[in-house]
């Protein structure tokens, strides 16, 4: 059961890290698709 809980925790950590990393690297939708005339 411990392996399962650790795996679920790892899943959450990977998901949050992926979101932050992609956002930080400029892959946020607003970053990719909005032109300079659009306010963020």
């Amino acid at each position, binding site marked *: *059961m*411990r*392996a*399962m809980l*650790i*795996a*679920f925790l*790892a*899943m959450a950590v*990977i*998901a*949050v890290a*992926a*979101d932050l990393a992609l956002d930080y690297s400029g*892959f946020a939708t607003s970053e*990719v*698709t*909005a*032109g*300079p*005339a*659009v306010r963020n």
Partner: protein
Amino acid sequence: MTLLRLPMLTIFAALLLVAPPSAAQQAADDNPRAVTGGAQTLEDILARQRGERVDDRFRREAVGDPARAAGIRMQLGTLGGASDSEVFRALRYGGADVTVSARGPASEIIIQDGGIRWLEWRKGPLREWGGWVLAGMVGLLALFLLLRGPIRIDGGRSGETILRFNALERFGHWLLAGSFILLAISGLITLFGRPLLIPLLGKDAFAPVALASKWIHNNVAWAFMLALVWVFVFWIVHNIPNRADLVWLAKGGGLFVRGSHPPARKFNAGQKIIFWVVVVLGLSISASGLSLLFPFEIPMFAKTFEILNGLGLPQAVNLGELPTQLSPHEEMQYAQLWHSIVAFIFIAIIIAHIYLGSIGMEGAFDAMESGEVDRQWAREHHSLWFEEETGEPAHPAHEAPPAAE
């Protein structure tokens, strides 16, 4: 006069019937769209309804001509050389010189015909057929449970256990399983939210659910892909098909006959099928998922269709040649449809896997819970693996071998 009118009308009608076609009629025959001023005809509409391909150059090329516009000081001169309809046609067929402030890829495509076909397919057959696939699998399993009942340990629990999966194997399995379940639920919410959940929850309550589903689907996907690689590396060696698999399959895995336990190593043929299904469908769904995650950046369907055409596969099933020139939006639409189709098949198969790994088979869940399985369970379901691990015979001499073997 009235008396004369009738014979004269009769003569006129007769002349009309026998007269050769006029110049206007001739022109209409030469150019059937002349009668509609160049627009589509009834025959075009009927042909499209029959599923025939209509040459749409009459429409595609009718985009006006700025060079022939009236002078700017003349009447209607400020309108330029293209009417509104012609401008919209140019936008629709990609002939317009478009400047947009959005800087994303393919943002200059403002109108795209295929979008309607995709939307209709997504709203209709995809949801209906996909829903039936899932309902069908649940129904089959319910029937199987009703007729066969849970598969018990025939010899009863021995009370002694043997390690079947170590912590790293179980970690990989649960990372894959947990992420798959979250992706499946969030994907189904995305697809069925509008017709099923909004009527239940209302739009205000559904909005955060949809937002959370999107976040989960986009970000948990990375855990799924990592776990896919993990289980592949750990288990590929145990999932190479061998001769014992043929025996196992010939006996239906012992699933349908009580007391039948065909020999198997660490994974039986059914589990190997699940493994390869997970690897192949997992790769495919990851590829289309990445294409959706980075819109317009990873087009893959035009190239895939080209390869399939080259192999002659679509032609063999009467689909004709698949299109090899796709607009960026069409690439995304194919990616979405493929992603969903694979997902439905994947979910249905995993439902069966979850059933057999839990309520369908006594003792099976232990393998992924603690990693330890009952020795009698191992003897019955993975006899060759048990013998390899322990050096003991799976069926000692004083025990009669299972009746159906």
